[in-house]
């Protein structure tokens, strides 16, 4: 199983929100609109929308990072011109969200939201700062590992994916019910970015790579 089961009781919020019934398998209709996806125009995304460090007057506090990778289908082919959205906490582990109660400072120079379209090679690229870990009250002394939220569209509404990217070597992953809700170890590893010295820019920022592989639609696999 690739995806986490909806009901993962160690993550308490799943208990009343996980569907009790199995999803109804509905395959074989080539005209189902779910097999298509929005097409994005390049004028819909600003040139700086992928740089989360340049959205305010000053620079955000934190460790500058470059995060790049390719959006691929299950055969390894690039998914071009698709929308990738990224959002995250600041370097202190606080979201620019009114309901985040974590007593860590907000950063007036960091909103923590960006987006871009993939290029002809399926590649996206963001410049941001490394988010901090934060407590989340799921259980005693619960802390989320540092993570970036990703949203990807792909070629079909059935491939629509929201996920999280983690950083290599983070000791909190071993204790995190959200990361650990993924049953299969190889699938878990998919969510851990790789540090890259080649991407790292001298006197500027650390580089990480993170590829995202989307599921194929029934049409493509048939």
């Amino acid at each position: 199983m690739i995806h986490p089961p909806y009901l993962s009781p160690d993550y308490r919020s799943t208990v009343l929100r996980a569907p009790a019934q199995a999803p109804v398998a509905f395959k074989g209709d080539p005209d189902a609109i779910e097999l298509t996806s929005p097409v994005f125009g390049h004028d819909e995304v600003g040139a700086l929308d992928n740089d989360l460090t340049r959205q305010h007057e000053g620079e955000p506090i934190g460790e500058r990072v470059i995060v790049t990778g390719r959006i691929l289908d299950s055969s390894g082919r690039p998914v071009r011109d698709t929308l990738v959205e990224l959002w995250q906490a600041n370097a202190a582990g606080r979201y620019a969200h009114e309901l985040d109660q974590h007593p860590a400072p907000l950063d007036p120079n960091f909103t923590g939201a960006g987006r871009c379209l993939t290029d002809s090679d399926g590649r996206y690229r963001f410049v941001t700062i490394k988010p901090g870990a934060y407590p989340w009250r799921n259980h005693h002394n619960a802390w989320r590992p540092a993570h970036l939220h990703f949203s990807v569209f792909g070629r079909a509404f059935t491939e629509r994916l929201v996920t999280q990217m983690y950083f290599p070597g983070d000791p909190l992953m071993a204790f995190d019910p959200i990361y650990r809700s993924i049953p299969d170890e190889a699938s878990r590893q998919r969510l851990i970015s790789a540090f890259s010295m080649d991407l790292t820019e001298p006197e500027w920022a650390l580089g990480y790579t993170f590829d995202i592989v989307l599921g194929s639609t029934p049409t493509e696999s048939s």
Partner: protein
Amino acid sequence: MTLTPSQTVGPFFSHALPYAHDWELVPDSYAGAVTLTGHVYDGDGAPVPDALLELWLGQTGDRGVLRRGSGLVSGFGRCATAADGSFRFRTARPSGPYLSLQVFARGLLRSVLTRVYLEDRPDPLLDSLEPARRKTLIAEGADGRYRFDVRLQGDGETVFLDF
């Protein structure tokens, strides 16, 4: 290749994913506009105040997906639920009998995908469901105003789809 697994959208996305006019697939002046409203409920029947819904008509249209331009119809819309679990969309009537609706929320480790049928009619998917379950996919209303609730779990649980 190993697919990338899903993770929850979490509780804190409303500073990032909503955008101007995201719930308005058509402008206010659009002749024949359809208003779709409803609530998202959990297994206790409590409203879900931190869900994100996405509506897809099956065609991109000419109004833009992210930047609502001067065109008439966008095929895609997005709406974060309010504190009372409510959502709303203003859309064109789909060319077929249904709209595609995807729901993300804290506590959903993977999104759920369902369909909103604007009328009950013979249909390969609807006809495969028991009457009580079939009912969960059919919006109530007429004349361009429809209601559709999403029940994530328990009594009246919405039918979710696996393609």
